[in-house]
């Protein structure tokens, strides 16, 4: 599993909004760095890594919600959730298939047809999940989710600078 990047330079005394911008910036990069090869059903760790990154990003958007412009934040969070859900739809059958294969290896020959039957069911779910993920990834690109998330970062930074300027004036 991909580890979360260390976020350097944060101070406990930083304004929440400024910290939010910094954390979000890092989590955006992590998410999109995991996108390559995610539709490859022979390499199930890629989708897992991207799912974990999407959860972390979603979590940051939820924790720091008051720090971002409300309308844009709501739309971006909705799309990140949609992406996370699609990654989950693909990931869940991956995990079930792996577990059933282990179980199949542990039981007697006469018990294996039933397990294989279930594996086939999950393979169908895996294919459907992959198709859904492909659609959502295309929507993510078409709607420039990355650009919209980066705009949230910039908006938070600008607002923080403006407030700091007001405070020092």
């Amino acid at each position, binding site marked *: 599993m991909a580890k979360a990047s260390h976020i350097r330079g944060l101070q*406990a005394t*930083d*304004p929440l909004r400024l910290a939010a911008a910094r954390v979000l910036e890092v989590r955006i990069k992590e998410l999109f760095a995991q996108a390559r090869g995610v539709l490859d059903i022979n390499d199930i760790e890629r989708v897992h890594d991207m799912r974990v990154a999407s959860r972390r990003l979603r979590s*940051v958007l*939820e*924790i720091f919600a008051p720090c971002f412009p409300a309308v844009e934040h709501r739309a971006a969070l909705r799309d990140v959730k949609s992406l996370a859900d699609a990654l989950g739809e693909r990931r869940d059958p991956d995990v079930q298939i792996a577990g059933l294969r282990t179980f199949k290896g542990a039981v007697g020959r006469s018990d294996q*047809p039933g397990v294989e*039957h*279930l594996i086939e069911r999950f393979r169908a779910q895996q294919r459907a999940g992959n198709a859904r993920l492909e659609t959502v990834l295309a929507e993510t690109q078409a709607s420039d989710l990355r650009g919209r998330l980066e705009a949230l970062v910039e908006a938070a930074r600008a607002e923080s600078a403006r407030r700091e300027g007001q405070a020092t004036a």
Partner: protein
Amino acid sequence: MKARAVKHVDPSAPLADGLQRIIRVRLDELHSFLPDALEPTGSQAMHDMRIAAKRLRYLLELSAFCFGQYARTAAKRMKELQDLLGEVHDCDVMLPLVLGEVAELRALDAAAVVGAAAGAQDVGPAMVRAAPHASTYRGLELYAAYLQARRALLFARFASTWHDLARRGFRGGLEHALAERPGPASSALHSASANGVGAGDASEQVVAPAGV
């Protein structure tokens, strides 16, 4: 499960102040699923508690550098709890699915046997050879038994883990760490951690009441 709203978070306030406020709400949220989650039949409460543990974990990982070693330890405990409840949930989702599959196959086989017995006054035992899924049930039933056994054991582990956390004063310890946080901290002081902002707080002065 929709997260409880956190009121009065000031985006201009210091990071540690804002996170402290949010953590308190998430800590309350985690405890709100008790005692239902500690009942073997409390699947929904356990599921909700898992989501609450995940939210709290991410927050603690993000903010450990502000609140010291106890917050870091608490994040690890939340991950353990989340993983355990996730395994219970997987069993809860899978078991009815497997039993549903058995029921579906049984219905298909019954229809096939009826078809084979067309024109007969009764279904003779030998006609069951026409059942196309006869060899499939056994594995499915065995898998259902495995899931049921695993679920029982995982639930017992979860309950024991939670009671242990409570006995060691998890909630009080975390509240203490939030209230008595060290002086100004910086993530630049810390080495990279597996999941959060930083690890190895140089200013950890919080003394938690018990060693969770």
